[in-house]
Structure formats: C-alpha cells, structure tokens
C-alpha cells in the first residue's frame, strides 16, 4: 500500500545530477504512456495496441487500478463480440471457446510475474480472480476447471514463498470454493485442504494462518461428513495431541491461540459452535483437568514464559463456569498466577490488574 520495510536512504537533495535527470526522463516516459492510454480509452478504442500499452503501464505500476478496469472493459467487449458472431453464425462455438480461453490464459500468464514481484497488490489478485470467474461463466467445464486447478498450484507457490500472505490464504479459500462448486462439477476438498495446513505447520510451526485455516476446515469437515459425537470427539483428541506436540516451543503465541481455540470446546458459552458441542459436563471437566496437567508440565521447563500462566487461569475459569462459580482455592491460585504475570509481562499490566480487581470484587 505504502512504503513498508524500505530503509531510509538518500533523499532527493542527495541525488546526483545524473540520477535526477534519469528520473525526470523516466517521469516523462511514464506520463506519455499514461496520456496515450487515457486518450485511447476516451475515444473508446479497443485495439490490441491499447491492450499492449495497458500491459506496459501496469508492469510499471500495478497499483493503477483504473487501468486494470480499462483492461477488463476491453475484454468484456471482446467476449460479447465473439458471442454475437456465434449468434450470427459467423463463428462456430468451438472457435469462440478457444479464443476466449486464449485471451484468459494469456492474461493469466502476463499476471504471474507481476504477482511474484508485487505479492501484496490487491488489484493483481482481483484481476486474476475476475479472469477465472469469466472462465467459469463463458467456458465449458472441461476448459474452465483446469484453469482453476492450475490456480491452486499457483497459490501454493505463492504461499510457499510467504507462508503468512493474507491475500494468498484468502485467495486459496476462494479457489477451493470454486473447485468444489457444482458449476465446475467439484466435490469437497476439505480433507485435502486440512492436510495442506498440516504440511504448512510442519514447515513452520508458528504459521498461525495455517492453524487458523485448520479451525475452519475441521468444522466444515465434521458438518460435511455428518460426524457423530464420537467422531467429533476423536477429532478433538487428535487436535489436542497435535498441539501438545507443537508446544515444545512454549514461547510461540500462535500455538497458544490454537490451544485456546480448542479450549473453547469446554466453554459453556462457546461450545455450541465448537467441534464437539455435545460433551457432557463430566467429559468437559475431565478434559480440562488433563489439559491443566499438561500445561503444568510445560510450565516446569519454562518458568519465565507467560503463556502457560494465562492458560492455567483460563482452565480455572472454565471449570468455575461449570461448577458453582469460582471457589476460594481457585481464586487464590489465579491471584498467584496474576502476580507472576505482572512480573513476566509488564507490558500488559493494566490487563492483569483489571482481572485482579474483578476477582477481588467478586469475592467481596
């Protein structure tokens, strides 16, 4: 969007005369190109030359969203023209399909290097998606589907270059949704996508984007497969095991947020939306007790880490919700943990003090 991570370097006062002149020349070339494109667009031209010039302009400046719009308008015009030719029997349907496919494929190819260079540019992602949606609307499944399949490969490449790319993950969900759609004769890919998140977590445990996608996919899978309560519980057990394995690095907050997500299953207020909504109170209490034991083990080797303390407080509060509120014993423990937190995590002292006050107030 704006400059991120660009080191402060020479200002314009420090530019050499040659550098200044080079820049002025670049400016005038750029302005000439902009003017030419705008004049042609104004005159409602729709020529291959204009298309070429928009490409040149976008290669220099992919943020120029109006030019992406021009490009799409040219294509819309072309697609309609081809359809008219078919209706007038001037063109056979197979030729229309292959011409539309050519246009879309060529543009997707043009975009790929741009995306590699500007992976956070919204407009490039938007334009790709528009092209693929055109494919779905204008081409038979046999031609449209492979384009979306290739796209899944591409977004995989983008995510292996930057595994937290916000655009990439969102885009991946849209591509998958299309591939699953009836229109493209698809079926659920949730299991396969769940495996993908595991692969990404395996490469980098702290990839919260992958952990997040897991939370959504698991709920989707259980619904799609009409999972029984036992099957849901089995999924829960597997996830708890997975996060326990990952938590050998207790300093990584991504892991604790995933753990917190699993703990929602034992929260009476949130359980309904969780992966195992029908656990009995006894089951929930027993899960919490076992998590508590696990967290205490983690804490033994990481006394200076704030996250286990937070998790222990959460366990205690969840138990209290299912019993007759917070007992004296639980309150004392929480107050002790809060004392630790105030020392270990002074940045958030206000938060710990608020919690302390609310406990004392509740007791009074």
């Amino acid at each position, binding site marked *: *969007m*704006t*400059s*991120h*991570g*660009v*080191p*402060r*370097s*020479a*200002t*314009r006062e*420090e530019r050499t005369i040659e550098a*200044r002149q080079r*820049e*002025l020349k*670049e*400016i005038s070339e*750029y*302005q000439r190109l*902009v003017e030419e494109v*705008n004049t042609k667009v104004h005159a409602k031209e729709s020529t291959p030359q204009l298309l070429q010039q928009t490409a040149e302009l976008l290669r*220099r*400046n992919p*943020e*120029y*969203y*109006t030019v992406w*719009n021009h490009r*799409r308008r040219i294509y819309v015009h072309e697609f309609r023209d081809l359809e008219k030719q078919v209706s007038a029997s001037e063109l056979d349907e197979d030729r229309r399909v292959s011409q539309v496919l050519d246009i879309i494929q060529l543009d997707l190819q043009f975009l790929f290097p741009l995306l590699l260079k500007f992976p956070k540019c*919204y407009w490039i992602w*938007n334009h790709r998606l*528009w092209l693929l949606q055109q494919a779905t609307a204008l081409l038979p499944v046999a031609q449209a589907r492979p384009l979306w399949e290739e796209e899944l490969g591409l977004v995989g490449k983008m995510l292996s270059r930057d595994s*937290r790319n*916000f655009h990439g*993950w*969102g885009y991946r*969900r849209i591509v998958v949704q299309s591939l699953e759609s009836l229109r493209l004769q698809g079926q659920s890919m949730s299991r396969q996508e769940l495996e993908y998140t595991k692969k990404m977590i395996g490469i980098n445990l*702290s990839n*919260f*984007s992958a952990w*997040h*996608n897991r*939370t*959504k996919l698991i709920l989707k899978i259980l619904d799609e497969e009409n999972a029984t309560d036992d099957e849901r519980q089995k999924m829960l057990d597997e996830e708890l095991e997975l996060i326990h394995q990952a938590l050998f690095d207790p300093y*990584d*907050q*991504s892991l604790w*947020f995933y753990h*917190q*997500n699993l703990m*929602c299953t034992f929260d009476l207020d*949130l359980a309904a939306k969780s992966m195992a909504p029908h656990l009995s109170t006894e089951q929930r209490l027993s899960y919490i007790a076992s998590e508590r034991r696990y967290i205490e083990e983690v804490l033994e080797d990481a006394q200076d880490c704030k996250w286990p303390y937070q998790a222990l407080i959460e366990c205690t509060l969840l138990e209290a919700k299912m019993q007759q509120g917070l007992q004296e014993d639980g309150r004392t423990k929480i107050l002790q943990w809060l004392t630790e937190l105030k020392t270990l995590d*002074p*940045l*958030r*002292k*206000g*938060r710990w003090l*608020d919690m302390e006050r609310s406990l004392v107030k509740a007791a009074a």
Partner: protein
Amino acid sequence: MALVAGPGIGGSRSSAGTLPAELTLVIDKHVKYIQGLDSRKDELDYWLTEHLRLNGVYWGLTALHLLGHPDALPRDKTLEFVLACQNQDGGFGAAPGHDSHMLYTGSAVQILATIDALTDLEVSQTGGKERIARYIAGLQDPTTGTFAGDEWGETDTRFLYIAFNALSILDMMHLVNVESAVSYIQACANFDGGFGRAPSAETHAGQIFTCLGALSIVRRLDLVDAERLGAWLSDRQLSNGGLNGRPEKLVDVCYSWWVLSSLAMLGKLHWIDAAKLITFILSCQDSEHGGISDMPGDMVDVFHTVFGVAGLSLLGYPGLVEVDPVYCMPKKITQALPYHQA
C-alpha cells in the same frame, strides 16, 4: 493541484540511528513535511502513487488537524481538488480521471466533513450529499449485506466500514440495510474474538478496526466479546513497544492505529504499555525532515505519519488534538455530526 502526494516517501539517512535520548514529537517538521508533499513532481514516485492521491489528502489533512495546524493546507484548493475527483456515478476516484471506488469516496467524504464543506457541496450541486450516498448504498450486496469496493465486485469488511463511516457523516444511513451488514460482520468473527476480511478469513488487526468501527457507528458493540478480543489486541504489543497486526508478525507504526483504536473502542486502552508505544512511534520519526515511517530507520510516508500521530493522540500525547477512534478524524468534528445527535 493535489496538495498532498501519496505516499510522499522520504527521509534522511542522518537522522536514522542517531536518536536523541529524550524523544519529542517534532510537530513543526511534520507540518512542513506534509505541506511540501505536493512540491515533489520531479520524483517518479509522485507519479506512481497517483492512485493514492485522494487518500493522501485525507491522511495529510487529518494529520495536520491532529497536530493543531488545521489551516496549513488552503481550504479552497482542497475543496476544488476533491470535487475534481468525483465521477458521473456520484463516487470518487483517486485523482481526476480515475474510476470511482469506495476507498476514495470514503476519503472524499471525510475530507469534506473535516474542512466543513458538506454545506458547500449542497450549494454547488443540489442533492450533492445524497448523490454520493446513493453511490455508496448501491455497492451493498443485497444477499450477504456486505459491500463491494466498486462495480467489479471485490468485497471486504474494509468497504463495509467505509460505507458506514461515510453514510453516517452524510446522515444517510437509512439508505442501507444495517441489520444484514451487522450479520455479515458477525459471520466474519473468529474464535479468538477477532474479525477477518470475509467469513472464514484469519483475524487481522486492520479488519478488527473496520468491524469494530462499523459496529460502533450503529451502536452494536454489544455483539463483541470484549474480554477475549481485548486480550488478543493487547498481545500485539512486543517488547520494543511497537504493535504487530497478527501473531508472530513484525511491528509497524500503522498498527499503532488499527490496534490502539480498537482497544479504545473496547475501553481497554490501558491494556498495553502506552509509554513504550509512544517511544516506539517517536523513534520512527524523521526528526530532521519530518514524517513518520513504519519502523525505525525506514522511509517515512504520509500514511504512517497520520496513523503515528493519531496513535499518539489516542495515548494523550501533549499538544495534540483529540482523535475519534471510530473515524480517525478530530473528535470535535465527529461529535458535531447530525447522525450522532440523534
């Protein structure tokens, strides 16, 4: 005449790395930096960032207001430029000749309110406010309740927020279906209490700001799990005092705004260490030429300048005008809006 070039990248090597022990906000330098942004037409970057021009005016103007220099840009020229960005459809583009988009229409409305020109607008074109409002309302998706950015249909909770922001300023909220938009925001909520740009998307501090802002405008913050979300937001602060936007990511001055304003809306501003964040923001200043960057030692730009200053304002930094966490505009301007009198 654009007044402000977005993003106005700049900065000097000499001031990076040699920070004074006691940091103060160099208000006059920042004012000069913003005023000078339009005199940089000999830089290629000025031309490559035309797509940010109207946002740039909003960022620069708001920063100047918060810095206590509301008249540092000429009002008549500002108004003239904003109106030159309006298209036939009622929406605004980034600069004259650019297509309409929610991102710029929102900035246009905010600028008009900030320079108290909404009445001028009605004088110059009868029904001028409604014309803009109808463009915005037309972008609501009747089935899902969310908003598209423009005619090409990209949806994002950013656009929903901008719609509510601008329509409430124009006092035209009745043109949209608030209830369905609110349901959509709820569908974007995640187990961590936060929100993504669409249902199923990962929680992100910027999107939290947009969702909380939209809910605040329609007085529905009761739908938010303030304890859980407040905790997540406070965990954005890292040991150097700066804030990141998602777990295990780098700090960045713009999150001083997205995270901090969200904490303010939840009444939990005290859940982070204000003094350390102030020091972090100040260490991102170019104390010689003005402007604030994303991280210490990086290039400054007007985007990070306004969000750095706005963050300092929320933290009560002395000498700054109070900012409204919902609108990122001076609070005395938003408080006077007819929508908020009702």
